[in-house]
């Protein structure tokens, strides 16, 4: 298992066509134009129709996914969605009931964990309490039958990589949480696996340490050009570290996309609600005018939205708009000749103000009874012109900021 992972010159293997998702992406956001890898390059890891049940519980449901060499891929989902089971199947701790797992073209679905060129970093780190930091890191190298001198060199390299110099002789219970995390990382990287699996690697750290560690992980992954697959339930973490995220729900992949696409162009209402905060308006798709579509929402109001790339086939739709894209003003936007008619204006009364420091979140109860959330950045320290509860305001947003989703 001394085989090295293929070198990646530019580890920005970005989003490409999504073989895993049932439909192609609805909208492409200009900023993250997909950067397709050279054609004919097979993916490093191909998951094909993999399924796994525990008794009657279908943990992973015929799931397919391709992961390219050099990617930092995140599996994100609520607890019980099957993400950990999928990761454990990649590590070999679970055997799929069906499907194939191809690593570099070879099916490893039935290969036991100790024979896979894949390593895992465990959520609780699983450091061997009876071994020192050095012996923990050297553990996998010894199994690989590496020469003693080579092991020493590799361990030293790993120790400096995770900046644990001077700690080599300590036992795990003499380390802080952050140090343990580094030892676990070094231990799983020492064998230079083709794919590194990380199971909630930062869950045990406090918030500050977690954020700095996220950046170290990204930095490390970029430097090593290794393929990382991380499982997390923390969407901020997934969006920070990963270049592509697969969102799982009930054993299936809901969407595989870049963080930006997930947020700005979710495929489904479920994704829109799962990722970030969103205002949803249920309604019926109405008439088209140019590249604008009008949706009649429940209580007589209409919302004009930008025509989605993916034509809406059903009439029952759902308009989603992120709170930070909903602006508030006392009288509505200053009219701007050409665009005025296209801007959505919903009138109502501020019902709640939540000050969060960097942001203030307003809840506006529309005359129709629907509550719309708007978040506004507090960009100036002494700017006191917020809105007060009870104040009458106009909530407005542009058609292009709206997302149309089938219900």
């Amino acid at each position: 298992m001394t085989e090295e992972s293929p070198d990646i010159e530019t580890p920005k293997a970005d989003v490409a066509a999504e073989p895993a998702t049932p439909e192609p992406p609805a909208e492409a956001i200009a900023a993250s134009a997909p950067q397709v890898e050279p054609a004919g390059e097979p993916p490093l890891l191909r998951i094909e129709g993999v399924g796994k049940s525990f008794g009657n519980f279908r943990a992973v449901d015929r799931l397919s996914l391709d992961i390219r060499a050099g990617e930092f891929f995140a599996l994100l989902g609520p607890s019980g969605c099957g993400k950990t089971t999928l990761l454990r199947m990649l590590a070999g701790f679970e055997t799929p009931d069906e499907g194939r797992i191809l690593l570099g073209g070879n099916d490893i679905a039935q290969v036991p964990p100790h024979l896979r060129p894949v390593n895992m970093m465990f959520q609780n780190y699983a450091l061997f309490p009876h071994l020192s930091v050095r012996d923990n890191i050297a553990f996998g190298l010894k199994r690989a039958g590496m020469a003693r001198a080579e092991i020493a060199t590799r361990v030293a390299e790993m120790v400096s990589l995770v900046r644990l110099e001077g700690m080599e002789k300590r036992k795990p219970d003499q380390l802080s949480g952050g140090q343990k995390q580094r030892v676990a990382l070094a231990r799983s990287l020492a064998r230079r696996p083709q794919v590194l699996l990380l199971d909630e690697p930062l869950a045990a750290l406090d918030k500050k340490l977690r954020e700095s560690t996220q950046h170290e992980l990204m930095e490390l992954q970029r430097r090593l050009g290794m393929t990382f697959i991380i499982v997390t339930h923390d969407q901020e973490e997934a969006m920070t570290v990963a270049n592509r995220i697969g969102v799982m729900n009930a054993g299936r992949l809901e969407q595989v996309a870049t963080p930006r696409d997930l947020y700005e162009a979710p495929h489904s209402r479920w994704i829109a609600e799962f990722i970030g905060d969103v205002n949803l308006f249920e309604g019926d798709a109405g008439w088209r005018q140019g590249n604008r579509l009008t949706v009649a929402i429940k209580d007589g109001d209409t919302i004009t939205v930008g025509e989605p790339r993916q034509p809406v086939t059903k009439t029952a739709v759902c308009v989603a708009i992120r709170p930070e894209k909903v602006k508030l003003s006392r009288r509505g936007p200053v009219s701007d000749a050409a665009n005025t008619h296209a801007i959505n204006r919903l009138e109502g009364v501020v019902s709640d103000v939540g000050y969060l420091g960097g942001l203030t979140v307003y809840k506006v109860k529309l005359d129709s009874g629907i509550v719309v959330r708007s978040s506004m950045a507090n960009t100036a320290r002494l700017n006191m012109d917020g809105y007060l509860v009870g104040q009458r305001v106009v909530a407005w947003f542009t058609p292009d900021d709206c997302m149309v989703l089938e219900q």
Partner: protein
Amino acid sequence: MSARRIFAGPARLAAIAPYAWMVLFFLVPFGFVLKISLSQTAIAQPPYVPVFDVTEGWASIKAAFGQLSLDNFRLLVSDDLYISSYLRSVLVAVISTAILLLIGYPVAYGMARLPKRWQPIAMMLVIVPFWTSFLIRIYAWINILQHDGLLNKVLLALHIVSKPVVWLSTDTAMYIGIVYSYLPFMILPLYATLAKMDGSLLEAAGDLGASPARAFWLVTFPLSLPGVAAGVLLCFIPIVGEFVIPDLLAGSGSMMIGQTLWLEFFTNKDWPVASAAAVALLLLLIPPLLLYDRLQRRTLAGGG
């Protein structure tokens, strides 16, 4: 599950030797007890008929089966000696277990309420006597309880009694011995459940208006019931069959079933009746044994 399945194969292989051992030296012997309990006494070596001789083939075994009878069990239910020893065993076990619970619970509770760093020490203190020989501990009590022993000396010196009290060869002495020997078996499971209990539960009960005593009865005690059950079974079952303690400390007036069995076996050399007594004792213990088995499996397998 499958990482576990990878381990399961070798682990099951590991179990083969102990499995075979337990079948041969624990399960199979019960078959012999059952068989001999249905046999007749004989002045022979071994002292019973029929003797199965496998070398003589199937026919002799079949013939031997014909000679089996329930006579020994008929004796057990018709002779007062057996019935009274049977009943006495149950009675002694019930009373002893009740005393053990009354003493063990406060001790375990006190241990669980100790500051955290003192708890392991307290636990060691309870366990250490368990490591010293059980026979020695009974003997130690004979030292104290005998006619001119320490207890009588203290009582006389304090003028609580005017002449030495007879302690040895009484039920009191036997109960002291049993309680003394089995106390760790009661305290440890109780302590284990009480120590695990979340202290904030009592605070919550207090916060909701329960007095400490009520909080104990409404919260602590119900939650400690699994520990109570474990402690009770761990004491009750072996006490029913206890031999050494009643033999050394109790009077010779009435016997427990274990003593009867011993007497039949060693003194009267009546192996079939001794076996029948063992079968009867086992039948009596089957319900608590099943309960204990379930409890044990839950506590041990639950951790994994």
